[in-house]
């Protein structure tokens, strides 16, 4: 049966292929791996070498060649589309929660639809539609959220009743359903043939394809890719693309300079059956029952059904060669719960005869998102892998983005959530990956509520205060491997356990965080912010200043001791990073960036700083513990501990000074809090951390000090309209678009990266505008809470999406932050967004299909925050300046 199945999937018109496509016609009749003579030897050099002939590799080759790059070699260790691509279920599904993933899947769908016509290779593309079922109200809410974002993208999608579902698919048992989502344009393909069609087109465009050629390692010199060593010789190249799927990790580690690609394979099972007595129509929609953990599609008159079980079986942890993929066993006992779920969903299938249980390993990543982009350590080394079992859905779009990235220097959309550089070496431990993917695979179908956290692979990076804070009731979340406090559960108070606290409504920590926020407003709180990325840049002469002036948009030639908020922009003026830089001395700077910038920012600076031994860049993240003292009494606590006056006259806002706190000397104190509230951040050499923390807590007692967490911080910064990089800001957002022109010094006497783009925007206006929304008719207790990604409507028309949201305990309202665009009513073309455009609209925010009125604001409510003692302490007085 297995052999027959292989034949079914690979039944394809080979002779149509371009003669440049080597090695295929000679080997197609044999499934053995005995060496056959290769008719054509490998070229000695090429511009690009792609490793991997699955859906991702062929898609990258296809798109690169379409964009005009011709000198491309694609190497496949076995045969084209013979790995996971051959075995995968072939479902093209656009119902994805994340916007960038949704766009990739949508593009893939459009691409595959016309691929047969373009290439002449039959792809089996059938527009069947898909139905996602909800067994619970919470599941239905999550489907409605997806439906909202599909609709504003122009992808047809509707929420339907169980009865309507059964009309679309007569086999569904609907007794336990509360609703469903129907996406009529979702499709089915024969995945191997899609890959072969892409290869055929690429081949016609000049891409050379060599099968049975293994890459042993990639050579890198002076931080640049120089070539590829294969079992058939060496190819010199400028670009290498690792599309090796589940072998990408191994391949990344095979070179002298390892490229860390954190992914790990898990076994994945699906069932194939013989046709029904009355064969199923090939246009019958695919059914996804996430609560039952299964999917079911029609296949050759019968069905193909698999799922994501609770107890996945990770494999290849030690790394194996590809041959073993064919020897994986069927495991019926393991599949039993999924089979039960299938028969429960479609009881009519009882009499259907089994053809085969296929065991097809898939690779998963630590955060359930695929991995693309350029290595931070080897220029020209690109990666596209870790598709989390959605290789067909994402393959087309992901290949396009990666090709754009290589050809243009950056993709046409923000792909930071998928960027290889969101990971570092810390995520590439085999043990970590093995444990994490065992959590990730079931998560594919788990209900994901706002602010869920991974539970495995935790407590990797911690502050020296971890145990102290934990003992005081800290609840933790993780960012880039670092444990950060969400909030502190007061003694004697119990919160719900993890499973029961899942909600789309008001969470159980509402009052706890409220109390922390109140304390920040009225007294003083301590938040451990050690996770932030910290770099030091120094030089013997003026090199540091000159380089930073070029790389950052604000003026850094400020007096020593000043702190500057500035963006690190790309050529288009977009934020590659948003940071605070303190000038420690004439020639040295201390730079604070978001936690997940550790790899990206390092690579960005390394690649752009002049190669000068007198200029040093050092990552000092691990050297300092950061305590954020927020609140009007922070000044009192600190002056008592240091016997130094801390008032605004002596220690103005945005100032940095090394001083003593308690017994400890050399503490970097900065008058910023990342929230707009008065206070200080203390950067403490780690060996003093416990001492300083204890002193602060002891001294703070009489001022009502307490611990606080990131949830309080988030509420504070969002009600103050503070944008955070990675959440609100990305490489496609300029300072002009988020009201931060005051953080840009356009005339600082020298050019800087992004200057031209900003000047142009200043002249011509912006096409989107960061806006704050106050929900008006939203009942905090009874209504669904916003999260992020909610569509924004202006005068009933879609204008953009939210990027973050929080409940403001001061306004007693929900605040959403997001971008407003101005799409032309007829053409959909983007028009300039003016202040008037923002101010003259009636706004609504769509939360899971329900619209709430919202008031738009371009500046924070300064008048509401009267708690402040002195106006000049306000950190971002720039907002009022405009």
């Amino acid at each position, binding site marked *: 049966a297995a052999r027959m199945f292989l034949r079914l999937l690979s039944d394809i018109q080979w002779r149509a292929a371009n003669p440049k496509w080597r090695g295929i016609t000679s080997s197609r009749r044999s499934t053995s791996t005995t060496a056959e003579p290769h008719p054509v030897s490998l070229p000695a050099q090429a511009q690009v070498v792609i490793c991997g002939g699955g859906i991702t590799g062929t898609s990258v080759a296809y798109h690169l060649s379409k964009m005009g790059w011709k000198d491309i070699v694609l190497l496949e260790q076995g045969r084209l589309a013979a790995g996971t691509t051959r075995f995968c279920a072939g479902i093209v599904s656009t119902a994805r929660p994340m916007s960038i993933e949704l766009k990739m899947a949508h593009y893939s769908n459009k691409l595959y639809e016309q691929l047969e016509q373009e290439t002449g290779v039959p792809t089996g593309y059938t527009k069947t539609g898909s139905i996602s079922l909800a067994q619970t109200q919470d599941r239905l809410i999550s489907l409605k959220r997806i439906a909202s974002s599909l609709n504003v993208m122009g992808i047809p999608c509707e929420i339907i009743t169980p009865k309507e579902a059964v009309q679309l698919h007569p086999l569904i048992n609907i007794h336990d359903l509360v609703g469903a989502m129907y996406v009529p344009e979702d499709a089915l393909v024969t995945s191997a043939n899609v890959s072969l069609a892409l290869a055929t087109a690429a081949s016609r465009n000049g891409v050379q394809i060599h099968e049975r050629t293994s890459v042993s390692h990639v050579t890198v010199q002076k931080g640049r890719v120089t070539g590829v060593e294969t079992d058939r010789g060496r190819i010199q190249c400028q670009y290498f693309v690792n599309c090796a799927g589940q072998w990408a990790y191994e391949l990344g580690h095979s070179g002298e300079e390892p490229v860390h690609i954190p992914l790990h394979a898990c076994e994945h099972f699906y069932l194939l059956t013989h046709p029904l007595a009355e064969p199923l129509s090939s246009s019958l929609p695919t059914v996804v029952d996430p609560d039952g953990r299964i999917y079911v599609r029609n296949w050759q008159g019968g069905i193909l059904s698999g799922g994501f079980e609770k107890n996945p079986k990770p494999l290849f942890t030690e790394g194996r060669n590809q041959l073993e993929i064919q020897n994986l066993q069927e495991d019926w006992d393991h599949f*039993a719960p999924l089979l039960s779920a299938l028969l429960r969903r479609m009881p009519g299938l009882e009499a259907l005869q*089994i053809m085969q*249980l296929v065991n097809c390993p898939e690779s998963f990543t630590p955060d359930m998102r695929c991995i693309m982009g350029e290595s931070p350590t080897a220029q020209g080394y690109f990666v596209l892998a870790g598709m989390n079992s959605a290789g067909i859905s994402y393959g087309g779009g992901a290949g396009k983005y990666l090709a754009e990235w290589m050809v243009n220097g950056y993709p046409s959309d923000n792909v930071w959530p998928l960027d290889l550089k969101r990971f570092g070496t810390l995520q590439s431990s085999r043990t970590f990956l093995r444990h994490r993917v065992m959590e990730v695979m079931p998560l594919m179908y788990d209900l994901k509520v706002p602010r869920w956290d991974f539970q495995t692979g935790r407590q990797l990076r911690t502050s020296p205060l971890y145990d102290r804070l934990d003992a005081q009731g800290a609840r933790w979340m993780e960012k880039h491997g670092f444990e950060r406090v969400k909030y502190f559960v007061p003694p004697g108070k119990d919160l719900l356990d993890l499973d029961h606290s899942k909600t789309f409504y008001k969470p159980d920590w509402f009052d706890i965080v409220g109390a922390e926020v109140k304390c920040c407003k009225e007294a003083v709180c301590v938040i451990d912010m050690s996770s932030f990325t910290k770099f030091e840049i120094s030089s013997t002469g003026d090199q540091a200043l000159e380089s930073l002036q070029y790389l950052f948009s604000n003026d850094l030639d400020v007096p020593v001791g000043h702190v500057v908020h500035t963006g690190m922009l790309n050529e288009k003026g977009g934020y590659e990073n948003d940071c605070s830089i303190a000038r420690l001395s004439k020639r040295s700077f201390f730079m604070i960036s978001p936690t997940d910038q550790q790899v990206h920012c390092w690579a960005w600076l390394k690649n752009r700083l002049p190669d000068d031994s007198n200029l040093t860049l050092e990552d000092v993240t691990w050297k300092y513990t950061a305590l954020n003292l927020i609140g009007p009494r922070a000044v009192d606590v600190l002056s008592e501990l240091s016997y130094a006056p801390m008032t605004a006259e002596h220690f103005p806002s945005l100032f940095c000074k090394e001083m003593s706190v308690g017994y400890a000397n050399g503490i970097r104190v900065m008058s910023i809090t990342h929230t707009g509230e008065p206070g200080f951040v203390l950067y403490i050499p780690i060996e003093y951390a416990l001492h300083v923390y204890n002193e602060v807590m002891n001294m703070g007692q009489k001022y009502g000090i307490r611990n606080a967490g990131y949830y309080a911080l988030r509420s504070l910064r969002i009600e103050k309209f503070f944008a955070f990089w990675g959440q609100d800001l990305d490489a496609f957002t300029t300072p002009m678009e988020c009201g931060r022109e005051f953080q840009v010094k356009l005339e600082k006497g020298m050019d800087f990266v992004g200057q031209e783009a900003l000047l142009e925007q200043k002249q011509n206006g912006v096409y989107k505008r960061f806006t704050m929304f106050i929900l008006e008719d939203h009942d905090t207790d009874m209504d669904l809470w916003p999260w992020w990604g909610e569509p924004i409507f202006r005068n009933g028309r879609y204008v953009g999406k939210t990027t973050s949201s929080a409940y403001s305990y001061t306004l007693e309202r929900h605040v959403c932050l997001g971008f407003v665009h101005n799409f032309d009513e007829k053409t959909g073309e983007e028009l300039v967004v003016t202040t008037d455009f923002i101010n003259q609209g009636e706004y609504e925010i769509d939360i899971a299909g329900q619209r709430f009125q919202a008031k738009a604001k371009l500046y924070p409510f300064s008048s509401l925050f009267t708690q402040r003692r002195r106006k000049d302490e306000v950190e971002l007085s720039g907002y009022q300046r405009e």
Partner: protein
Amino acid sequence: FYLTPPQVNSILKANEYSFKVPEFDGKNVSSVLGFDSNQLPANAPIEDRRSAATCLQTRGMLLGVFDGHAGCACAQAVSERLFYYIAVSLLPHETLLEIENAVESGRALLPILQWHKHPNDYFSKEASKLYFNSLRTYWQELIDLNSGETTDVREALINAFKRLDNDISLEAQVGDPNSFLNYLVLRVAFSGATACVAHVDGVDLHVANTGDSRAMLGVQEEDGSWSAVNLSYDHNAQNEHEVERVKMEHPKSEEKSLVKQDRLLGLLMPFRAFGDVKFKWSIELQKRVVESGPDQLNDNEYTKFIPPNYYTPPYLTAEPEVIHHRLRPQDKFLVLATDGLWETMHRQDVARIVGEYLTGVHHQQPIAVGGYKVTLGQMHGLLTERRARISSVFEDQNAATHLIRHAVGNNEFGTVDHERLSKMLSLPEELARMYRDDITIIVVQFNSHVIGAY
């Protein structure tokens, strides 16, 4: 009166304990995978005890069951103390010195044992100082003796058993100014306990036995069936060698009175035991200690009673018989149990029941559809049935519990009869002892992969 299955389970599982040797990422380098243990009382309070610990300064793991008689005091003391004596006997000279120096200078001691205890397995707080001093005297003597030779496990076990019994005896003779402790040491000495202790270090398994508890190895034959190998000899009247030994140690004139009604001096079932000074001390010593002892002791008829035909004490020893076994890949598990189990079950049945329990899941051949015509419904039925079979085995998460369930509930066909189980477990306290004895079981599971690699 009838117990529901959940009630039965809560009784059976009240004392169960499991320990898995910690592994790193699915890899366990120890020859022991872990152990399950459990106790079912018949006496109130139960007179059996159990212990398990990992030696921290030497390699190896210690496991033991202790069956008390005439009260639980002696079994309790032995369960707390014996492993320390064994561990100390195994320590190299330098470590002993290091420990002694630490005590001398008031520094923190190197931990010697890591205990694996059920919450009900308690240690006496009051006696710890006394016990510690006796132990320290022992290691000081070992330091002075410094033989320079590497420690032989067999010898260490024998020395530890004998030394502890000697200390129990001495402590009772010397007494203690604290009246509670004074009474405690006397109760320990006048009650008795058997001990069956295993020491596992790599492929070397030593079993030291004193009395009528038993150690049994479960061996899986090539055809998958199970057989039992005894790793201890019972010290009782059924053991000819043991009867022979006792007779050799006393004058011919006592030959007839030594063993009567299958009991030592017509009184004691086990022929070797800890404590039981009534069978070890001279009559004069017994009288002196009882008279100078606390009133509770003086008023106790049992302690004042001198065994008949008591001419040439001691009649009883705590010296163990030690059996060494080199573990093989087919040796899958070891059962240590007090006589309460062996009275009701044959060792062959024990081997089979535990063996099938431990391999329950793996024993089923994986299903392959192959070329057969199977429908989804048929497959679903088949898988459900397989899971039901597995879950009946896995009603117990603990091999020792599973064994107790069979020992108490087995009907004539060798399967568990719930009605019988319910009856046996709902017997009133005073009747329970008539139908069954205390049962204590430890099932140690071996790691065939590691053993095979030796």
